């Protein structure tokens, strides 16, 4: 099945008219010692689109996100952000690209010595030095209100639940108004109600901010709710990519088994 990325690559559309996909990875390989994690992955996501990456645990979904934001280096292959190759890019130049990206870590990765408000303000303090203290405070309050955490500004990360930490992590990821949002297991470890709330929140943010989003998850229900397209990974390869209906119609045994078990 030809993916959107394959078509774009063949026509060369995005290179010539400047409408490059927000994220495009091509033939990405990554191994840790002798274990092959990603074995020639190619995917792309355009502005305003949400791609859910599904797969069993340990199939390299989180590694894919870390490669896209440059926290890991691929063994070979290409990662382009708005048409710009980031593989091998210097750390400071990569910083400029990362300002356009928001990342929600699987375990939120909040700074444990800072309060909720300070966590959200952290990147603003470093990158929006033109903002006054009160403007920054207002922006932090607005972001935390968006994720329903406006009443917990002065709490420490250790004093709030896992679901609340993910909300704060999401607010932190949105602080610099990113064009690309990467979400690593946003609903993992949460109860169904909290999962639903996070899904609704992600949908609302996508509608309002028109970001390109990649959501890594093994929660099929969540993927179906928030994603325009789904990509299923197995043994380091994309087995299938398309809408949920296309996945349902697939006659690939692994796809059917995955859908049945999920």
């Amino acid at each position, binding site marked *: 099945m030809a993916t959107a990325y394959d078509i774009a690559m063949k026509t060369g559309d995005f290179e010539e008219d400047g409408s490059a996909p927000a994220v495009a990875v091509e033939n990405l390989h990554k191994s840790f010692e002798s274990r092959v994690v990603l074995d020639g992955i190619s995917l792309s996501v355009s502005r305003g689109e949400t791609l859910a990456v599904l797969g069993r645990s340990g199939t390299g979904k989180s590694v894919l996100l*870390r490669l896209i*934001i*440059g*926290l890991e280096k691929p063994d070979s292959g290409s990662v382009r952000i708005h048409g710009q190759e980031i593989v091998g890019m210097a*750390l*400071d130049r990569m*910083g*400029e*690209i*990362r*300002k356009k*990206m928001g*990342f929600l*870590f699987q*375990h939120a*990765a*909040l*700074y*444990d010595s800072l309060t909720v408000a300070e966590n959200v303000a*952290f*990147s603003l303090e*470093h*990158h929006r*030095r033109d903002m006054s203290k009160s403007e920054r405070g207002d922006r932090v309050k607005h972001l935390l209100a968006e994720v329903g955490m406006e009443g917990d500004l002065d709490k420490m990360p250790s004093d709030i639940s896992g679901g609340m930490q993910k909300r704060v992590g999401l607010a*932190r990821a949105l602080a*610099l108004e990113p064009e690309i949002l990467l979400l690593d297991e946003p609903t993992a470890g949460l109860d169904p109600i909290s999962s639903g709330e996070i899904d609704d929140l992600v949908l609302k943010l996508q509608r309002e901010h028109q970001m390109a989003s990649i959501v890594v998850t093994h929660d099929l229900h969540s993927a179906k709710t928030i994603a325009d397209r789904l990509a299923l990974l197995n043994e380091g390869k994309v087995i299938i990519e398309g809408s949920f209906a296309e996945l349902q119609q697939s006659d690939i045994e692994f796809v059917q088994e995955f859908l049945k078990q999920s």
Partner: protein
Amino acid sequence: MSNREFTSAAGLSPPLPGQRAVPMPSVLSSATGLAGGFFEWFGNLGIFSWQVARAAVTPPFEWRELIRQMDDVGSKSLPLVALAGAAIGAVLSMEARSSLTRFGAKAMLPSAIIYSVVLEMGPIITGLVVSGRVGAGIGAELASMKVTEQIDAIEASAINPYRLLAATRILACILMLPLLTLAADACGVLMGWLTQTLAEPQSLRQFIDSGFRGATFNDLLPPTFKTAVFGLIIGLIACFQGMRTRGGAEGVGRAATNSVVLASLLVILADVVLVKFILVVFP
């Protein structure tokens, strides 16, 4: 030679009956592995140092974090360093007094105390105390941030962690070690005098005048400023060990221990080299 004989001779399977085990290949391979690990560690330290140096000299500078770290390294280490300096001064005074009295050189006591404290005991004690307190603190803090992905989160927020976390801490250690050494020296000299005057009353002014007689800046400044190198070693090793940690709570503990052990060891080795260097350059 059969397959079994071949693999046995190569050390890949147990020796055949009646054949002596040949331990050489395993000894050789572990020695090679150890040497490889040693060079890999130094190679990684070199790359880390280059990244920190490059981040430290390019804007934006993290002044606020630097000041916070200077406070953490300096003012929070001061009580311990001062106490260690004072203890050394008191012990030196008691020990030197009995020795010098035996040789009829009691008049040399103030010089013996002051020179011992300022030239060697103050700097090395400060280096070792800070290695323990600050080295373990930085190593454990950064290791904990690393295993909970907080350092990745900083990097993902487009902030250079080498600049924010490592450069500031290393610079704070470099700047604060000489000041802490001055504090340790002052406490050592003061306590040396106090111990001396309890045994045989002498004014502080007389003690200082007599102790520093003939001393020049060349005698006093290089030993104090050599501790900036100790600061570099402590900060660099602790940040390096912390930021390369893997493996949960055990990894954090290992990073803290390794930071202290390696920093203390390298401070002692650096002291030997620097003393020789100072003696050659400032004869």
